[in-house]
């Protein structure tokens, strides 16, 4: 195909290349992810190291905040021996309930304690701050700061939070009133937010952070224990010494292994060969391997995945019973559904071999009346035991029957009132009465039926028929043949003359021909105006010729006019 065209106007919809590049980037991204999964094992060592670092950092920050809170309590004179424990428990509980990290809760509590000087009051305000934070979407730090300032008499910061209090309310009301109002406005926001999807994720985040902190603490403790020190002050020096020591030991192992290999009959080195120390190392190695296998078996069962961190309360007996009942009910329903499905399948399979249904389906495909169709559909519905369809088709059938009845009554009424007229009835009576002339008869026929006779032979034939007691229809029938014979004979005579080969003569029309060569076969070939043959009959006798001509004349009535040309008729001898 040619490519000749003129673009009158066009619009830019973006290049294919951009799309290709985008697709390629996506594919590359997927491949890289897949590769990362494959290399996950290899990369996990680096990930562990990174996680360990983050854990130590998280523990350090948490420890710092906890100490800071403890110092605040002590400075405010609120430390009575177990206040710190109570506050830490409170924060831990709030953290689990709301999904807000203790990294935010501790500073907020610290801030409120400094403002109010009361643990109870601070606890109330912290709860309120959590509600407001969840309701407004502002972070807990901002909200707790605003509440702290408001408690100290500066309400401007509260207005910035957009808590729904007017300036008049904020300036004219006392903090207690404002607190009550806010408690009403934001009641239950924190708990609702904690139940949401985002809240659940936050809870996971909290748990993850707590795990991190716990691990970080474990790592620090382990290092302290390893250094055999009560503090980490000398840990760095100890670690350096340990490094050098370990390196020397490894080097020593290398030298020893090489020496052992030189002993004839010993092909390889095994730690167990070292007396006493080797036995201890072997035991430790076996313990380590055992611990590793246990860890492998428990892979994927860390506290986050198992969900133990959520500390869900144990369900009551009533709840357990209800759960068991629900499970039982669900199982029963599932079993019932399965049975129903099986029954439907069996029924569907059986339907394929049900002769009644097959016959009905076959009958429906044929040409049938509407009423019969309704009847068959009803039968089908009964076979299928479909109550809805049975109702539907019963109604349809009743309607169809009513319509048929109505139609029948209309037809009956029409039959009774309509009588086919006999155009010749009155005429026949007159003919039978006799005394009439042929011309009068002909005129009557013309008047009654519109038939006119332009041929005297035909007219005579008709009149004779009528006067001989024939019915008008029979008389006309006879006249028609007479006319056809007349016409044909006349034309045949003309053809005979035109051919210059005639030894024939026609005594009278319709009586046959006299053939001088009667012992030979004469063939009558009659053609119509269009040149197609009407009759081709071999004849031998004058009577046969006559019959053939009569037949030919009859055929003219069937196949059309003979036309005016003499060439349309020919015969051979």
């Amino acid at each position, binding site marked *: *195909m040619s490519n*000749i*065209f003129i673009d*009158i106007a066009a619009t*830019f919809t973006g*290049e*294919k290349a951009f799309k290709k590049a985008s697709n390629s980037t996506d594919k590359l991204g997927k491949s890289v992810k897949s590769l990362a999964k494959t290399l996950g094992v290899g990369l996990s060592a680096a990930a562990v190291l990174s996680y360990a670092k983050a854990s130590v950092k998280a523990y350090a920050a948490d420890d710092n905040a906890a100490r800071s809170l403890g110092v605040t309590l002590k400075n405010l004179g609120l430390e009575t021996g177990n206040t710190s424990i109570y506050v830490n428990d409170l924060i831990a509980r709030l953290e689990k309930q709301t999904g807000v990290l203790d990294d935010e809760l501790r500073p907020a509590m610290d801030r409120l304690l400094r403002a109010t000087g009361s643990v109870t009051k601070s606890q109330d305000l912290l709860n309120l701050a959590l509600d407001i934070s969840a309701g407004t979407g502002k972070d807990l730090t901002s909200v707790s700061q605003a509440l702290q300032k408001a408690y100290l008499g500066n309400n401007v910061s509260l207005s910035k939070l957009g808590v729904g209090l007017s300036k008049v309310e904020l300036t004219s009301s006392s903090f207690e009133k404002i607190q009550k109002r806010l408690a009403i406005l934001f009641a239950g926001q924190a708990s609702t937010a904690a139940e949401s999807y985002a809240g659940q994720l936050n809870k996971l985040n909290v748990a993850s952070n707590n795990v991190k902190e716990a691990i970080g603490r474990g790592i620090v403790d382990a290092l302290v224990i390893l250094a055999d020190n009560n503090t980490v002050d000398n840990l760095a020096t100890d670690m350096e010494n340990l490094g050098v020591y370990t390196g020397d030991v490894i080097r020593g192992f290398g030298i020893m292994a090489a020496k052992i290999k030189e002993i004839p009959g010993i092909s390889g080195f095994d730690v167990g060969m070292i007396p006493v120390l080797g036995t201890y190392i072997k035991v430790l190695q076996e313990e380590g391997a055992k611990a590793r296998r246990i860890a492998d078996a428990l892979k994927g069962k860390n506290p986050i995945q198992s969900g133990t961190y959520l500390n869900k309360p144990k369900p009551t007996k009533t709840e357990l019973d209800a759960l068991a009942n629900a499970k039982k009910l669900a199982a029963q329903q599932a079993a019932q559904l399965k049975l129903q499905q099986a029954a439907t399948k069996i029924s569907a399979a059986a339907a394929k071999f049900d002769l009644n249904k097959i016959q009905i389906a076959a009958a429906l495909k044929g040409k049938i009346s509407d009423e019969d169709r309704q009847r068959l559909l009803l039968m089908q519905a009964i076979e299928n035991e479909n109550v809805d369809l049975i109702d539907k088709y019963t109604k349809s059938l009743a309607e169809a029957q009513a319509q048929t009845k109505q139609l029948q009554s209309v037809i009956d009424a029409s039959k009774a009132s309509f009588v086919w007229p006999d155009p010749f009835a009155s005429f026949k009576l007159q003919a039978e009465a006799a005394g009439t002339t042929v011309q009068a008869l002909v005129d009557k026929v013309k008047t009654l039926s519109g038939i006119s006779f332009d041929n005297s032979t035909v007219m005579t034939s008709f009149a004779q028929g009528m006067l001989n007691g024939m019915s008008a229809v029979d008389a006309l029938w006879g006249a028609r043949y007479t006319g056809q014979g007349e016409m044909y004979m006349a034309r045949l005579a003309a053809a005979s003359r035109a051919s210059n080969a005639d030894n024939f003569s026609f005594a009278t029309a319709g009586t046959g021909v006299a053939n001088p060569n009667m012992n030979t076969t004469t063939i009558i070939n009659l053609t119509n105006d269009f040149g197609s043959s009407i009759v081709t009959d071999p004849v031998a006798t004058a009577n046969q010729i006559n019959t053939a001509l009569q037949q030919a004349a009859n055929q003219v009535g069937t196949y059309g006019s003979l036309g005016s040309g003499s060439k349309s008729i020919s015969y051979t001898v």
Partner: protein
Amino acid sequence: MPVEIKGAIALRKALKTYTPDLAKQLPKEIASFLKPVVKEARGYLPDDGSILSGWRDRPNGTGNFPTYSATVAKRGITYKTTPSKPNRRGFRSLARIMNKSAAGSIYETAGRKTPDSNFVRNLNGKVSGVIKGDGKMAGRAMFRAFEENQGKATAGVVKAIEKANIDFKRATQ
């Protein structure tokens, strides 16, 4: 070079969704500006009698070179008002006049690159086809008609699209 109209595809989609009557009207209006060019271009194609005798359509023609039939060639010059598929550079045509038949395309472009070839010389001697236009927009029939149209078709198409945009905004306000 075609005129670039931004957002025309989106407009057509919007018309189809929100104002189907306007959507049906737009192609008709565009067509009214393209039809005169097509008619003129068809007129520049020679009749069967006036083409080179060896190029005429014949019952048992040999070879792959397409024979010339005036009927086929004239039928091949037509227009299109529906957006095309994007080309390599990301453009979609909004209205297009085409010379689709092989022989019509040959007559259209013969002489662009080889004006002194035997075929072109014989063709020029036989028919009075004048090449009009520049570069890839030069030709004897369609390009000539477009050149002689003096940008009326382009202006009309752009105006029709702009009008559809205004009508659409008015109808949906």
